[in-house]
């Protein structure tokens, strides 16, 4: 120890202190960044989970079950079921059934990609509805 200049030791301590200040500020920045990432991840995860749940493909089954429960509706509709979409046709759908179906579909979170409604007779409509998942 006597062969090392004491001022060198002091300098070493000063350098170590400066480095520790630098490392501390870097660590603070990294922690802040990670905390922000956690908050963002949480926010995104909650939003994404809510949207996923809203546009869940399981809703297809729910919709089909609802159609089947109303006999007149089931009878008037032609349903084309594909892997990620559902196409519902009706050439002459009674207005009451059309109202019932559209109120269910529009009040639910379905991804409607196509809707065509035209009045054929006074109390009947032609319908084409496409929903995707």
């Amino acid at each position: 120890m006597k062969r090392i200049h004491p001022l060198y030791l002091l300098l070493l301590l000063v350098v170590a202190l400066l480095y520790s200040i630098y490392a501390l500020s870097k660590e603070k920045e990294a922690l802040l960044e990670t905390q922000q990432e956690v908050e963002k991840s949480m926010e995104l995860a909650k939003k994404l989970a809510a949207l996923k749940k809203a546009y869940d493909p399981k809703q297809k089954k729910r919709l089909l079950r609802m159609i089947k429960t109303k006999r007149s509706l089931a009878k008037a509709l032609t349903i084309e079921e594909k892997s990620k979409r559902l196409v519902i046709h009706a050439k002459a759908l009674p207005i009451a059934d059309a109202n019932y179906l559209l109120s269910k579909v529009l009040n639910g979170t379905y991804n409607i990609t196509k809707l065509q409604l035209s009045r054929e007779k006074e109390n009947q409509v032609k319908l084409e509805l496409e929903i995707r998942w």
Partner: protein
Amino acid sequence: MFTKFKSHTCKIFLDPDVEAELEEGLKADVILSPALYWVRRFSLPVRSLKEVKKLLPSLFEEFLPEGDFDYYGYFDGDDFIAFAFEQRAIKKVLAEKKIPLSRVEGFYFAQNEIDKNLLPLRISERFILSEADGIVVRLPASFAPTAKKLDLKSIERLSSHQVHLEHFSTSIDKKSLMALSFVLLGFLLLYGAEWFRLHQARVEAEQKKSAIFTQYGLLPTMMQNRALMKKYEKIDRTQKRFRTFFASVLHVPLKKEERLHLLSWKKGVATLVFENIKDAKRVTEYFKRDFTLRKSSFKEHRLVMELQI
């Protein structure tokens, strides 16, 4: 296995008036001449070396000239042998003899290294080493003209009473330096502890982030999740807009005989066909409030509109 260590040190007797030379490549064990230190034998009531060391400056006080002295001592039976030496004076003599301090292994006192039975011994033309009351002293050669020459090779083994000189001198005194070092060390420890605390907090935050990914079944990277989110947000925006449009269609102000014949919606574009319309402007203005009218035609009371939703 039985490696032989070749000695790379030689012994040098250091005295301002004795020539000394250090061979190239060798290191030196320096035996200090009595001319370079003060020695006293004390009979002390204390037996603790630590306590005696504290007393040394005061024990020598009345004997030493003005200067910056270092002290060394040890118990020899009931007595305490104490040495006082001035580093600056020794360094000066070393410099005169052109012996670098970096090549000195250690400093010894002639008092401890010279066999008193061999005294007197001649160290130069002008001086001899002699003994007075058990103390090795330097005297003029005239005191023992027939004294034999000091042969350092006859000293087979040096004692354990070795001292070291400081290689560097600083303008700051040792106590201040130590205090400053402790303050710096204290800060270093504080910063270290704070760094460790922050690091732990970061590790915990990372774990929390991973837990969120698992809990909500997210995709492996944030980029994939953001892309998925964008897709869902676009769907959601479009669907909300479509439902707003549909609500507008349901509340369109139509007169008794006026009616909606067709509603078509695909890829954000809606087509509406009204029949028996008398005032087309009323209907188009109603939709233009919230949507962009792309095209419209009004012929024979039939209003066709194409809207951007």
